[in-house]
Structure formats: C-alpha cells, structure tokens
C-alpha cells in the first residue's frame, strides 16, 4: 500500500527502566542460538547424560529393596548422591557446555561486532553496562541450564526417592556446592566467552581460540609439569582450576591430596582471569562507535 494512504500513528505509554532492556537481549540471544540445529545436537548430548543419571538414580531406588546386588553394581556408576558424584556430573555437563559455547559465541556476541548489532543496541535507551550485563546473562543462562538445573533436579530426585527426607537435611552442603560450582562456571565462562568473542568475533577463529584455552593450554601445562617437575604448571588448565573451586564448594577439597594442593593458586587465578576478561570486554565495548 502506498505510504501516503497509511496514516502515521503516535504511541503513548510508560517506558520501562533501561535494566528491563536486558531481558529482550537475553531472550533474542537465546532464540538465535536455539534456532541452529548444532546447538540442539549439543543440548541433546547434555540431556543424554542427565537422563542416564536420572534413570540410574530411579532404578537404584527401586531395586535397592528387591535386588540389593544389582543396586550395589549400580554404585560402580558413581551415582551415589554424594558431593563428589554431583561434581563429576556437573563437570561432564560443563564439557558439553564448553563445546556449545564455542559455537554459540560468534552467534551470541561476535555478530554484534562485525554486523553492527552493537551499534543497534547502544543507540537505544540503554548504556553500555546494560548491554554487557545482558550478554553475560544470556551466556550464564545457557551454562546454568545445562549444568546447574539438571544437577538440582537430580538432587531433588535423589532426596525424594530416598526413604525419608533426611537426605536434604544431612546434605545442605551439596545444594551449596551445586549452586556455587554452577555460578562459578557461569560467571567465568560467560566473561571469557564475551571477552574472546569481542576480539575474535567470527566463528572459526573463535572456536580455535576457545580450543586453545581449554585443550591446548592444559596439554602444554601437563607437558611443562613433566619437564620441569613442578605441579604449578597444571594451573594452565582453567577447567581444572574451576573444578578445584567446585570441590571447595562441595566441601570435598582435600589439601593433603596432590591434585588439590594448588587450590589457593586456583582461587587467585580464576578471579584474575575474570577481571582481565571484564577489562578487555569493557574496553572493547567502549571502543565501538555508534555513529560512524
């Protein structure tokens, strides 16, 4: 229809706080990610592990009375309802998340830099801090959805299928561990991904950089440890550092053990990495010209 035949209509109403603009950014970001088939494949991979563990807990609870031998066999699958078991579960889910984020990074963050999305956001009624918070929230939502939420469901399932509700009373640290480890993973991975994607926005270089951090660096660290005979090189593995902090959250950190002795270092390295990522991210976002 010709333009002149259609009247322009004004709009009136209350405008919401700029912080409320975070939600549409999170929502549109997630919907963009979920429109890709590869993300559903990776999500299914994460779901598979969750369903497997969920089924084991259920079967174990059912067979505990009828067939104690089989239940004992199932214990070897390490679904024991202890903090260590949840830590292992979340660690495995975290690996899937890591893969998913490697592919989602360019979609979620990178495209904003090389396709003008950031100018679009920043020319609206919001500041740079709102944009950064929203993007971090979107990544955190993915991480929490794959790691923490399934772990919480398993925790509730385990408690409900035990004979009494004592499981919840006796294991509050597990709940703290699930939330704490999930939060640490969410914050660190979101900052790291947002910072990297702001520098290498395109998919292939981003996946390569991500792989370097989570695959190459641990391998280098392990080699250096063997060559120099110094365990401090193991700290190059950020994934291991996160797990160490996760152990502390679950209360299963044992400083007598060789692999846990670097916990104090890990507790410094992880916040330092976060701080560096935040600085990089803020500088990068600040450098974007809305008017060119």
């Amino acid at each position, binding site marked *: 229809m010709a333009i002149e035949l259609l009247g322009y209509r*004004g*709009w009136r*109403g209350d405008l*919401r706080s700029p*912080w409320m*603009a975070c939600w549409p950014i999170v929502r549109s970001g997630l919907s*963009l990610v979920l429109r890709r088939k590869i993300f559903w494949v990776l999500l299914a991979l994460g779901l598979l592990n969750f369903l497997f563990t969920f089924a084991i807990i259920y079967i174990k609870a059912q067979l505990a009375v009828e067939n104690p031998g089989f239940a004992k066999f199932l214990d070897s699958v390490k679904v024991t309802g202890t903090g260590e078991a949840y830590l292992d579960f979340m660690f495995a889910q975290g690996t899937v998340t890591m893969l998913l984020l490697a592919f989602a990074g360019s979609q979620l963050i990178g495209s904003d830099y090389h396709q*003008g999305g950031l100018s679009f956001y920043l020319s*609206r009624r919001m500041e740079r801090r709102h944009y950064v918070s929203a993007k971090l929230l979107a990544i955190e939502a993915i991480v929490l959805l794959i790691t923490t939420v399934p772990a919480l469901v398993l925790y509730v399932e385990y408690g409900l299928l035990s004979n009494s509700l004592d499981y919840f009373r006796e294991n509050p640290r597990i709940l703290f561990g699930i939330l704490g480890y999930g939060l640490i993973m969410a914050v660190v991975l979101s900052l790291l991904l947002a910072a990297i994607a702001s520098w290498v926005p395109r998919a292939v270089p981003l996946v390569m950089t991500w792989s370097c951090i989570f695959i190459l660096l641990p391998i280098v660290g392990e080699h250096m440890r063997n060559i120099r005979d110094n365990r401090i090189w193991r700290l190059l593995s950020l994934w291991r550092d996160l797990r160490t902090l996760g152990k502390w959250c679950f209360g299963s950190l044992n400083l007598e053990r060789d692999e846990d002795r670097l916990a104090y270092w890990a507790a410094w390295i992880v916040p330092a990495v976060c701080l560096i990522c935040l600085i990089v991210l803020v500088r990068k976002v600040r450098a974007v010209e809305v008017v060119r």
Partner: protein
Amino acid sequence: MRLNTAHGRLKTENSVRNVRIIPAGCGGNLWHALLQARRAGHNTAMSLFELEQVTHFYGSLCALKDVSLKVERGAVGLVGQNGAGKSTMLKILLGLMRPTAGRGQVMGHDIRGSGVALRARVGYMPEAEMTLPGLRGVEFVSLAGELSGMPRRQAMRRAHEVLSYLGLEEARYRRHEEYSVGMKQRLKLATALVHDPELLLLDEPTAGLDPDGRESMLELLGTLAGRHGKSLILSTHLLGDIDRVCESVIILERGQVVRVGRIEELRATYRGRYRLQWQGQAAQFLRDLESEGVQILADPGAPGDEALAIVPDGWSNRTFFALADNHKVVLRGLEPDHENLESLYHRVLKQE
C-alpha cells in the same frame, strides 16, 4: 513533557490523565489530536537543541571547536566535508558522548549525563548496516522498541504499525538480512520510529538507494516532518536531499559552524544575482554595466552570450534594458539566479 520518576521510569506524557478527561463518545482520534496539539504547543515553547561553546577533542585532534548554536524544531540539515565534525555532533546530540568543554541541551535534556533519558525521545537511523542475523523484520523492530523501554506486547504491535506505515507490510516476516538495500533503509527508519520519538537523527538515509527509492524515502521524511510534526536532523553529503526535506541547515567546517539558519534566509544573501542572455556585440554594453557598479561573472559552461550579473543595492532592472538599447543589444533573457544548496554550500566554504 517527559519526566524522570524516582523508579527510573519515564512517563511519555505527564498530561495524559488531564487530556483523557473528554466527553464520552469522543473517539481516540480526538484524543490523539488533542495530544498532538499539546505537543505542538510544547514544541514551539522549546528549542530543538542548544549548544554553548561546545568543544571536543579526540586526543590532540579538535573535532568540534567552540560550537555555539540554537536550533529550532523542524527539519534541519547537517552538512560538512569528511572530518568536519558531523559525527561528533551527532554523538553529542544522541547523548553518547560528553563534550570536552561547553554545555548544552537537547529538547530540555542536558547533553552531559542524560543519555538514557535523551534517547527515549530521539530515534537514530545510522548509515552503517546493522543486523542481528536470524531475526525477522517485525522481530527486529519490536526488539528495538523493547530496548527503547516499551513493554513487549506494545512493542510488537507498534512494530507491525510502523512497518505497515513504511510499506514493509508484506516483508515483515522475512529475515531482515535478506532485505534489499531500500528495504533495509526503511527498516532502519522503522527501528528509529518505533518508540515514536520527537526527534529523528538520520545519517545518510538515502545512501545506496536507487532514484525511485530515494524519491520515496525523501517523500516519507518530508511527510514525517511536515505532517506528523517530527523534528529531523539529516546528516548527508547529498545536498539535494537537504534542499528537498529541510528548512534549516548547519554547515560545519573543520569543527566549526560556518553557517546556520533557514535555507531561504541564507539564500537571501544571494539576491541581486541575475542571469543575462543577449544577442549582438555586447562588449561595450558589459563595460557600461560594470561602470554602473554591476559585477559581471562569466558562468563556466554557459554559452558566450550569457553571463551572471551581480547588481549593486538600489539597482533598477530598467537600467539593463536602457543600456542594452543604447548599444543595440537585444536582451533575450533576464532572470534572477536561484542558488541551490550545493552552490550555497560551496560559496560559504569559499568565503570561509
């Protein structure tokens, strides 16, 4: 008038409650007309923007130098060469950047520190392409509305309205990255219009458009400014666009405002120029004209029997005919020389 509440929200119209007290039976159109009338009243009361000795440096590079100007509401063109300071001025007007020195206000909002409140009333259409791959046209515009603070449902409804208004009704469910250049320009305008701002900042709105698309875009901008009371700041290198849409112009050169005002008034300084056409030997005729104080300029590209004449104050056009008659020269044409914006721009730059 808009005002900040304690909760950081913005009321778009603080007088809505008063205006709603209208007799039963009166439709929304009357309500809207009243609102528009109030807005119009409000518009005349306040200038569009005012800058006072605004200076901005990028490191040691001075992008704007002591810019002081007051611009009334309406359609305003912003012209200048590359590096003249147009983008810096747009950033300041959008509240994206604080100037190094100086002060000012845009529609009553201080240019220092009210960026969010300011952008609630300003719509920005950038020159550069902006895409969020995967989103449909209507989702993209709706998202722009939500980011401007509109509730989700209203943003979606408004996105449909604006896209229909801009002629993208049939393409609204297509992914916006698949749009043609013309459609993308309209989509960008839709994202700027979705929250119904009072001021539109348009950066090269006709860039990349074919002649029909350009014509259509200019017509649209003219309608928005003329019929719907939107103020426009049009930054472009295409002076014909400004000539077509804007009433006023700001000419920037090396970070300084060299001319500002209504285009017609700026053209007024060009009065007293005539295009002369004659037949016969005119050498003596032209010499006599010069002796009467008329400045004769050769018009490059014009045939040999044509010239531009700049007459002194108090000149009577009858003298042209009298002198021509004296020298047996037939005066075939005598018409005022209308200056287009391009000539005006070049003349101003030459003077500076």
